């Protein structure tokens, strides 16, 4: 079924009766199917990935000359996206990544974005001469997380003795957008709950905002299926995506 067919159908005034009947019949045929069917489209792409990071293919969107890539690390400045998508737009993921920043450097995790890594949800850590800050943003809103970022994490970023590791849950299927962030040297297996995260976006939700539906923090969902990073004088040593670490029971 051609993409955007029904959106065009809804807005068009020129589709004849026969064509409309044919397309409506196509819709009904698909809708009446008892099970799933698999798309039989042919792969026509001849493009190749720019590199492999970890075991994942990547495309460098910006900075091919300033970004050095090996399977174990990504160093320098530039923007890249993972070739494999996150699957569905209205879904949740957990992003586990490890990095170090230069004296003046930054790294941004971009999630649920489009092919150019825009219209997504972003998490940025910056080191400005020893002053470590963190923000997250979606839509037109940015929220400063610097005050809740643990001091131990800030110190690790500053002294670069080891890579800083963060786990970021992005629940792109909840509104307002729900995000949780943990930090540490290993996955918080025994403490995966909203209380053990150093940030849970639900803590920003006031009773007044629940009632009014008007939010002051980043609440917009990402509009795409892709993810990647923007590096500025940074080094990325690990990045992987899994199902959310924390899932609210909905049944």
């Amino acid at each position, binding site marked *: 079924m051609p993409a955007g067919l029904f959106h065009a159908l809804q807005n068009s005034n020129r589709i004849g009766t026969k064509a409309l009947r044919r397309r409506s019949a196509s819709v009904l045929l698909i809708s009446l199917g008892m099970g799933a069917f698999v798309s039989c489209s042919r792969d026509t792409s001849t493009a190749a990935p720019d590199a492999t990071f970890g075991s994942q293919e990547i495309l460098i969107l910006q900075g091919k000359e300033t970004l050095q890539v090996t399977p174990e690390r990504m160093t320098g400045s530039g923007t890249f996206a993972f070739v494999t998508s996150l699957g569905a737009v209205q879904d949740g993921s957990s992003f586990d990544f490890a990095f170090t920043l230069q004296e003046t450097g930054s790294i941004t995790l971009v999630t649920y974005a489009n092919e150019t890594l825009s219209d997504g949800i972003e998490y940025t850590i910056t080191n400005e001469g020893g002053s470590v800050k963190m923000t997250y943003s979606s839509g037109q809103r940015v929220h400063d997380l610097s005050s809740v970022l643990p001091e131990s994490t800030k110190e690790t970023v500053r002294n670069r003795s080891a890579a800083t590791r963060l786990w970021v849950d992005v629940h792109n299927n909840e*509104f307002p957008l729900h995000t949780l962030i943990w930090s540490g040297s290993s996955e918080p297996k025994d403490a995966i709950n909203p209380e053990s995260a150093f940030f849970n976006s639900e803590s920003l939700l006031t009773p007044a905002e629940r009632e009014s539906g008007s939010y002051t923090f980043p609440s917009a969902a990402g509009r795409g299926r892709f993810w990647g990073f923007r590096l500025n004088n940074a080094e990325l040593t690990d990045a992987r995506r899994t199902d959310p670490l924390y899932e609210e029971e909905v049944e």
Partner: protein
Amino acid sequence: MTICNFASSTKAFCVALSLVTFFLNASKGLAEDSGLKTVLAADLVARFDLGGSDATDSLEVRGVELGLYGPIDHTFDGAISFASHPSEEGPYLELHEAVISATRLPLPVQVKVGEFFLGVGRLNAIHQHERPFIASPKIHTLVFDDAEGAKDTGAEVKWLAPWALPTELSLGVTNGWTFGHSHTKGTQPDRPLVYSRLTIFGDSALLGAEHSSSGLLVGVSYLSRRPDQDQGPDFDLFGADVTLKIRRGNQILWLWQSEGWYRELFAPSASVETLVGGYSVAERHAWDRLFLGLRAEGMVMPGQRDLLGRTERNQTLALGPLLSWKHSEFQTFRMEVLFEHARTPARTTESQSLALQSNFILGAHPAHDF
């Protein structure tokens, strides 16, 4: 309705239940004269992991519902129901439905206004504890963003066609501030949510004289949502459903129910995701009050490609047997095994789970449409 925490939620529910019980006992005659009826329903579910599933190997009260319904006067009926479901903050009490409806107008039209489950598809208007299986089909949970279904506040009009074949067209308009599972009020959308459903009913005259009181219901549905841009993509939803019940007297010998959905997400004005899926369940009376069934479901996101333009597979298939003991119209025990195969761009998983259910109803039971 605002969120109630565990303590206040449980207290509120108990107070409401006590007041209703007290009122009905104290004015039993009044209740009988007024036609007011009370229904209490409970849905208990235990899910066990047989390999790779997210089942928690525990029993939980999936839902408790308190409903009051009856005629308001010679023209209007009213219905109010509350439900409690588990949530991360403990049992969460919410208003399920508060509806005033006009079903006895001197016109082939029925109107209802209030908060209600949207009249799209077959399953969405059926409460979870009344469905012919335990776990909600994945396609239903995805398109309605909630295992139970989507409800909203607005109005719905049903028109019964004047020809011999029972045909009904319904149109609904609701606020659209939220859709599916939400613990907040939501945000005003770009335009209200609109939906429509056309159903055609074939009775025993079509199926044959030997199938007296059997019926075949076929429906097609459409829903359009244009939320605030922060809430996510716009989408259009198309569905079709078929329900066949073959009875002997009051006993259902065969039930076959199938439903399919097609959804397109737009962001902005360009399709970003297409979802197609459906389910089918067949159940047969086996012996005494025992019923055997089989459910199958599947969904796929066709046309997905990675950044190099290569096709990505994103699909789920599930199959499982059902065993139901319908002790009476008010009590059912059910067992369901589900085998699931899911393939996403990142990985392929297989899982198996076992679910056990006991649901019961106390009080007057609202009549089923079909």
